[in-house]
């Protein structure tokens, strides 16, 4: 393994007291002095700033770029309006998920944001197309929470006109930035691509706002888990299909029916017949968190699945888990047991999310 990389905000994280860890080959703050729970609540109640520069940002250009992209993903890209962003995923020939990503229509090009852990794979995958694939070196920050619009609008008033999953390029702090109204916390908020030479100055300016505090990867994970959002590598991977993962909403009807993407055979079969397992929310009845790997059993003691993400939800005020269970046990309200440290502990299947999403639609 090579040395972990540093984002342009590395020195600022250290200065702010960030506890730095190697995450997917990047030195990132897991939390700052306030701690995971306080940073989590800050985001739900006011606003939090996350450095997500480790994610891959890519521009795709070329002849029939949108049609070409549709050969890799099961979502509609050709019908995506200019200035709109869409959640989608690369599928493999077996109908599993290679990675999830956000694709935006920039007009005559597409802008994609992919996971840090998968960026090399994804960029090579997109380069299999007859397109010009440019990896951007911009920093990426996320400002998330109910106060996000007020804070960002001080520097970029245009954001007041953006709705959830809309994106624009605007002048901010003396440079051009891409601002998209989306995120990974379940809250309203923005992800902002900023040229490397400007990002520290602009981030420091944002952090002057009394309602904005920095938050690390720990809070990012507990926020997305409460919001029922999948983490690639945990809740979705090369074996799980979008149907099993309850991501059918991200595959528009024309694509679901028309196919023409890798793994269409399995995905269409599961759509028609139902999948054998489903990703569900699992709420432990007691206080013990059920983390990744904990087995799920039916009330007769038969193993019916496993937790893929789990921990403590600071806003929910208790343990929260997600995982796969056999389809016949996936209805909300179904009682199950979680096998934690050898002991069966009662839990029930719930409809995700644990904490309602708060998007500005």
């Amino acid at each position, binding site marked *: 393994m090579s040395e972990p990389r540093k984002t342009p905000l590395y020195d600022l994280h250290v200065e702010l007291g960030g506890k730095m860890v190697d995450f997917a080959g990047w030195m990132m703050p897991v*939390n700052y002095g306030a701690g995971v729970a306080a940073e989590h609540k800050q985001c739900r109640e006011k606003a939090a700033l996350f450095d997500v520069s480790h994610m891959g940002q890519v521009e795709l250009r070329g002849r029939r770029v949108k049609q070409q992209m549709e050969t890799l993903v099961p979502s509609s890209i050709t019908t995506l309006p200019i200035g709109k962003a869409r959640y989608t995923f690369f599928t493999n020939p077996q109908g599993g998920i290679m990675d999830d990503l956000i694709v935006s229509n920039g007009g005559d090009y597409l802008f994609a944001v992919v996971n840090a852990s998968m960026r090399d794979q994804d960029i090579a995958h997109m380069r299999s197309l007859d397109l010009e694939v440019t990896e951007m070196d911009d920093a990426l920050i996320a400002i998330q929470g109910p106060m996000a619009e007020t804070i960002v609008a001080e520097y970029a008033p245009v954001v007041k006109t953006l709705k959830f999953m809309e994106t624009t390029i605007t002048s901010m702090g003396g440079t051009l930035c891409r601002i998209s109204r989306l995120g990974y916390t379940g809250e309203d908020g923005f992800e902002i691509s900023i040229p490397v030479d400007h990002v520290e100055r602009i981030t420091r300016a944002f952090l002057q706002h009394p309602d904005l505090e920095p938050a690390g990867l*720990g809070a990012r994970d507990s926020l997305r888990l409460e919001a029922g959002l999948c983490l690639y590598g945990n809740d979705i991977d090369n074996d799980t299909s979008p149907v099993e993962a309850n991501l059918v909403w991200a595959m528009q009807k024309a694509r679901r029916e028309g196919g023409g993407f890798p793994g269409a055979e399995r995905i269409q079969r599961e759509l028609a017949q139902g999948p054998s397992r489903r990703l569900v929310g699992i709420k432990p009845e007691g206080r013990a*968190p059920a983390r990744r790997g904990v087995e799920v059993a039916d009330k007769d003691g038969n193993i019916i699945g496993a937790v893929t993400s789990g921990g403590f939800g600071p806003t929910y005020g208790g343990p929260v888990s997600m995982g796969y269970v056999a389809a016949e046990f996936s209805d909300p309200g179904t009682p199950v047991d979680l096998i934690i440290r050898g002991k069966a502990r009662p839990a029930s299947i719930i409809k995700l999310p644990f904490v309602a999403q708060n998007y500005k639609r």
Partner: protein
Amino acid sequence: MTVYYTEEHEWLDVDGETATLGITKHAAEALGEVVFVELQDVGETFDKDDEIGVVESVKAASELYAPLALEITESNTALEDEPAMVNEDPEGNAWFYKVKIADVAELEGLMDEAAYKAHTA
């Protein structure tokens, strides 16, 4: 009374054949915000290195081990209701157990304060 420490970052405040047991400030800080504590029942006996409880933080789960053979005579069940106490006062109010030591000779294998400080430095 003498306070002993373990490599698992537990403290043991010994008074004759009885002791109070908890996790150190160093351990509490490393764990982060504690959200769940599970204790064993009063009257149970354990051998050295047996698991005698669980402490979970927002970040991770961590087991508590018996630093020597012991019997639990009292457990601080307040921790199960208010796990955050472990962060607030780990070496005071947030003790885990009062125990009866099976064999005081086993104390010789533990660290004193100076040794523990060196261990965590």
